[in-house]
C-alpha cells in the first residue's frame, strides 16, 4: 500500500468541497496529478493543490492507496465520499458528508465529524474518534435507503436523527445520543453505550437498537416483552426487550408480525 499525505496549507474562506479526496480518485496518480484535481468553494473552481501540500503517491488501485490528511480539515466537506477500498486517515475534525455513500475500505477521523456523515453507507469501516453530528448513517433526504451495510464506530457522542431509514449495517456509539434514533428503520443494528434523550425507534419497522444507559422517554408504541441476556460488542449483560413501533406497519414472517426491537440494559 502506498501513502499520499495531504497537509493543509491554507484554510478555505468558506468551506471546501473535497469530493475528490478518496482512494478511488487518487488511485494511479502521482502527487502533482493529485494537486491538479478539482476542489470547489462556491463558484470558485480551484484545485486540491491550492489548499494542500501533497506528498507521496497513490497505489495503482484504491485498495492499494492510503490517504493521510494533516492540518485542520474542519471546513472540508465530502472527504472519503463513495470510497470503495483503501484507507483514509484524517488527523483533525471534518465537515459534512465525510464517508457519505461509502462502499468499502476504512475511514478514520481523529476529531469530530459534522452532520450527514456516512449517509447511505453500503460497506466498509468508518471510525470517528470524536463526536458525530446529526444524520449519521441516515438516508439522503427523501430516500428510503439509509445505511445498508458496513460499520460505523463513534468514540464520543452523536447528534439527532442517526440512522434514519437504516436497512442494514451496524452503528456503535460509545457516548450519548440526542433525539430520533433509527426512525423508519427496516433493519440494521445500533448500539448506544451512553444515554439517549428521547424518541428511540419511532416508526421503526424492523431492526435493533441496544441502549446501555437510559432512555429519557419510551415511545408509546413500544411494549415490554421479556428480559434477555445478550453479548453486545464484547459486553455480556441482561436487557429488557421492547417491541414496536406498534403504530407502524410490520411485515409478517410465517404468519407472525416482525417488529423492531429495543434492548435496554437493566
Amino acid at each position, binding site marked *: 500500500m502506498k501513502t499520499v499525505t495531504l497537509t493543509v496549507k491554507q484554510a478555505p474562506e468558506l468551506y471546501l468541497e473535497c469530493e475528490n479526496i478518496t482512494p478511488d480518485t487518487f488511485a494511479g496518480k502521482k502527487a502533482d496529478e493529485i494537486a491538479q484535481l478539482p476542489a470547489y468553494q*462556491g463558484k470558485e473552481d480551484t484545485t486540491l493543490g491550492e489548499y494542500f501540500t501533497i506528498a507521496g503517491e497513490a497505489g495503482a488501485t484504491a485498495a492499494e492507496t492510503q490517504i493521510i490528511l494533516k492540518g485542520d480539515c474542519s471546513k472540508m466537506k465530502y472527504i472519503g465520499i463513495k470510497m470503495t477500498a483503501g484507507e483514509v486517515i484524517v488527523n483533525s475534525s471534518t465537515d459534512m458528508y465525510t464517508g457519505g455513500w461509502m462502499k468499502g475500505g476504512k475511514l478514520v477521523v481523529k476529531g469530530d465529524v459534522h*452532520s*450527514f456523515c456516512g449517509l447511505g453507507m453500503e460497506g466498509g469501516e468508518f471510525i470517528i474518534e470524536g463526536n458525530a453530528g446529526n444524520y449519521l448513517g441516515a438516508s439522503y433526504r427523501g430516500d428510503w435507503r439509509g445505511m445498508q451495510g458496513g460499520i460505523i464506530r463513534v468514540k464520543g457522542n452523536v447528534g439527532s436523527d442517526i440512522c434514519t431509514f437504516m436497512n442494514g449495517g451496524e452503528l456503535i456509539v460509545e457516548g450519548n445520543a440526542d433525539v430520533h434514533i433509527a426512525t423508519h428503520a427496516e433493519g440494521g443494528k445500533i448500539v448506544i453505550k451512553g444515554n439517549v434523550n428521547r424518541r428511540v425507534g419511532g416508526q421503526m419497522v424492523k431492526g435493533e437498537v441496544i441502549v446501555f444507559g437510559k432512555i429519557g422517554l419510551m415511545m408509546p408504541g413500544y*411494549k415490554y416483552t421479556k428480559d434477555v441476556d445478550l453479548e453486545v460488542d464484547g459486553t455480556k449483560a441482561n436487557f429488557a426487550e421492547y417491541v414496536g413501533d406498534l*403504530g407502524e406497519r410490520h411485515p409478517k414472517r410465517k404468519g407472525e408480525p416482525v417488529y423492531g426491537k429495543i434492548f435496554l440494559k437493566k
Partner: protein
Amino acid sequence: MPKVVTDVTCPFCGTLCDDLEVTVSDDNKKILSVRNACAIGSEKFNHTSLPGRVTRPRKRQPDGTFKEITYDEAIDWTANMLVKSKKTLMYGWASTSCQAMSVGHEIAEKVGGVVDNCATVCHGSSLIAIQDVGIPSCTLGEVKNRADRVIFWGCNPAHAHPRHMSRYSIFPRGFFTVKGHKGRKIYCVDCRHTDTARVADEFIQIQQGYDYELLDAFRTAARGEALPDTIGGVPKEKVYKIVEDLKAGRFGVIFFGMGLTHTLGRNHNIDEAISFTRDMNDFTKFSIIAMRGHWNVTGSGQVLSWQYGFPYAVDLSRRNKARYQTGETTSVDLLVRNEVEACFNIATDPGAHFPIDAVVSMSKKPTVTVDPHINMSTEISDIHIPVAMVGVETGGCAYRMDNVPIETRKVVDAPDGMLTDVELLTKINERVDQLMGAK
C-alpha cells in the same frame, strides 16, 4: 368616479382569498376601501398609502444613515456584489410573483446563488416530511364539500389565517355538507387554549413538545394496540375515543401549522401526522394540509421544483448543478456557519424572522434587500431597493396552501417611477450579464 375591482386576491397568507373587492380612486392612485378581507388583509391594502413610504433605493452611509440613490446605482452595486461573491444567499421570494422568481433563478444560476424561501423557517419541516413519507391531501374545496371531521393540530387559523374557518374548514356549507358547522366535528390539539380551540368541539391540550409521541399514540390506538396511561399529558382513554370518532367519519382532514413544524422533532412530527392520515385511509377517507404562511411561499417552492427539482434551499453555487440538503443549504445554517459571502433578500424579512445569530451574521456581509417597505432587513442592509407591492400594485401568479394557482391582480398604480420585482430583477440580470461578459 371611484372604480371597484372584483375577484381580487389577497396577498397576505396562504389562504389566498380571491373574493376581495377593492374600491380605488378614479386616477388609479389610491385605495378607498377594501371589502371581504380580514383585518390583516385590509391593513395590507391600506399600507400602500401610509405616509413616509420609501420610493427610491437607499444606500447605507458610513455613519449608519441612509442616502437616496438611483435605481441604476443600486442595480450596479447589487450586480457587482453578486458577481464578486463566491456564494450568495438569495433569500425570500415568498411575497412576490412566480414570474419574478423565474428571473431571480436565472440570476442565481449565473452568479452561484443559493435560492431559499421562507419555508426554511416555516413549513420546511413539512416539506422534509413529505419527502420522507408522501402526503395524502386535497384541495380546500374538497374540505368544504365533504369534510365531517376536522382537526387543527398546532395551528391557530383564528389568528394566522383568519378567513380559513369561514371559507373552507368549519362553517361553510358544501355539496355533501349541507349542514355546515353542525355537520362537522372540530378538534383542536394545541399547548395553548387558543381562539381556534374555542370553536372546537373537542380541545386536546398537549404538553409542549410531545406531538410526536401523541401522534404515535394515535396510530398505535388506531391499530388497537395498548398505550401508556398518559401521553404528553393526554389520557389514553381520550386518544382511543377520538380515534374511534375519526374512523366513524366519512371524510377527515388534519390542518397543521408551526406548532408541529417548529417544535422538537420538526419534520418527524409532520411525518407521524401524515403516517396517521395514511393509516386512517384504511378505515375512511382522510387528508392532511399544511397551513402555509406567506401568500406565495408555495409558489416559490413550485417554481424552484419545476426548474431544479427541489422546493427550497436550492444550492446553485457550483453553477453547473443544483443541490439540496436542509441543514446545509438552508438559510439559517448557511448564515450561522458563515458559508456564504453575501446576501440578497427579496420579498421577505429575515431581519425580523431569523434568530438573532443568523441576523448578526447577515449584517456583517454585503447585503441587499428588495422590499416595498422599511423592515428589519432593510435597516441592516447596505442597499435597500423599494419596489411595487405585488398583488396590489402589480399582478402575477401565486399558489395557495393547497398548491392551487391563483392570479393576483394589480389594483392601483405604484408611486411614480417605482420598479416592479420583475423589472428590477430583469435589469439586475442584464447588468450581471454585462459584468460577466466583461470578465
